[in-house]
């Protein structure tokens, strides 16, 4: 199950989208999220869908892979679709089975909301799939830079994020080891009623917590010895460079927003 999940996963590649500056991509996605709400009729939603598919194509991520990996999201999407289908009233009555009435407006809203959902999930997935976590962190750090003035600890937040990301696999390994160790001692985690299963997680979590604290302490020592004194006077090894293509991609998005605005009713 874990292998299929694509939330937060990064697929290295060399597509146009991969090569964009992380700052451009983050800005792009945030603007896009706002722009999605311009759409309000069939044409604009069709344009939105087309634009998203174009982005998927440019990122060279296989559509099948994306759909397969986002299966849990589709369940949620179906849920909202049916919610609208059954409960939104307005327009002509299309079908009436027993106590369920389906109206034209309900169908319309259901489809629109589903498309909106789909494009948002696709776009954000493209961001995380084509940008390494460390680049996203770098991008966020730079983009949040202006907030340093209002005493937001931007550097610290970014460092926290990158260290957490770096330790995910380490802690996953550790969880696996503890799981095996507890199983070897006869603990049964995979079966039984929910209550029992939750109880069985406790002997898994406690050793994990203890070791995480130990790691944190070691890490703090190692960082201090290597001269870490906060963000002040620090230089950056990773350099981001904003190129023409990054500006162009954002301009394209602005143009796209204009197009949507023109066709909206």
């Amino acid at each position: 199950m874990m292998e299929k999940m694509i939330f937060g996963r990064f697929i290295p590649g060399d597509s146009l989208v991969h090569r964009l500056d992380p700052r451009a991509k983050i800005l792009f996605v945030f603007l896009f999220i706002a722009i999605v709400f311009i759409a309000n009729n069939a044409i604009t939603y069709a344009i939105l869908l087309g634009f998203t598919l174009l982005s998927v194509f440019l990122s060279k991520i296989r559509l099948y892979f994306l759909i397969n990996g986002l299966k849990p999201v589709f369940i949620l999407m179906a849920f909202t679709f049916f919610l609208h289908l059954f409960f939104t009233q307005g327009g002509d009555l299309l079908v009436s089975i027993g106590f369920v009435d389906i109206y034209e407006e309900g169908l319309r809203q259901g489809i629109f909301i589903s498309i909106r959902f789909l494009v948002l999930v696709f776009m954000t997935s493209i961001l995380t799939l084509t940008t390494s976590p460390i680049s996203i962190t770098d991008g966020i750090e730079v983009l949040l830079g202006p907030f340093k003035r209002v005493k937001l600890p931007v550097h610290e937040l970014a460092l926290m994020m990158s260290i957490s990301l770096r330790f995910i696999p380490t802690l996953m390994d550790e969880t696996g080891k503890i799981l095996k160790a507890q199983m070897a001692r006869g603990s049964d985690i995979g079966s039984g009623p929910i209550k029992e299963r939750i109880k069985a997680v406790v002997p898994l979590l406690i050793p994990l917590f203890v070791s995480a604290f130990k790691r944190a302490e070691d890490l703090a020592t190692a960082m201090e010895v290597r001269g870490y004194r906060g963000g002040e006077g620090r230089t950056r090894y990773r350099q981001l460079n904003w190129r023409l293509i990054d500006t162009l991609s954002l301009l394209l998005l602005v143009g796209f927003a204009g197009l949507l605005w023109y066709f909206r009713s």
Partner: protein
Amino acid sequence: MNGSILSFDQVTFTYMPEDKSVKPAVSDLSFSIKEGEWVALVGHNGSGKSTIAKLMNGLLFPQQGTVKAMGLDMSEESLWDIRSQMGMVFQNPDNQFVGATVQDDVAFALENNGIPHDEMVVRVRESLQQVKMEEYLDHEPHHLSGGQKQRVAIAGALALRPRLLILDEATSMLDPQGRREVIETIRELREATGLTVLSITHDLEEAALADRILVMNKGQKQMEGTPDSVFSADDELTEMGLDLPFAMRMAGLLQQAGVPVTGESMTEHELVEELWTYYSNK
């Protein structure tokens, strides 16, 4: 150049100074390390080794005595100056890997010290070459073996061009192969650059490579001398819970069995060498 790079002068440290019944972790310890030396600090668990390591880099300050490093007295003011000239590698390979990839980790200390970007790129390459990890620039830590991670940690320390490299039990969590990799790396580094190294260890095989060994026991310095002279007191070492290197134990047993080997071979390789040339050298 041949001055003392690190020295302890009658250093005493207690974790709980209020409580007189608690024995000091380190008591009345004096020693010094000269530029260019390889010194091993050995001792069993609880001998005060890790406390000494913390005293060296200013994580702890002694109640009595002085710690001097790079010609400066260790104090809150000189701390960062001293740390920038001293590289340290710790025990757990995972817990000291800060960066997301090998190159980020090596650059970490450089970033902290405000080294300009162009210089950083050069130094990262250079120090990874020194530990033969230059092909792993973009690797993530969980795709590396323990020995490789420790080599990256060494590179991270070297990138700052320190005058002293401290290995605090750096090989104790590694498998035999990883241990060999790390020790070999240190040996080559010493040959190439003459870097001063202090290895804190309970592995006498690692200590055997040093120029000088300090043996710690219960917070005090028990013995000091060349590996040969320290290892000749093998009963004392065994009493302290330290095991002689395999080759030396083997030589001792061979001598008991009437095979007149010299007992000077400190590594397996040397012992094998001595044995297979035994008849021709007679």
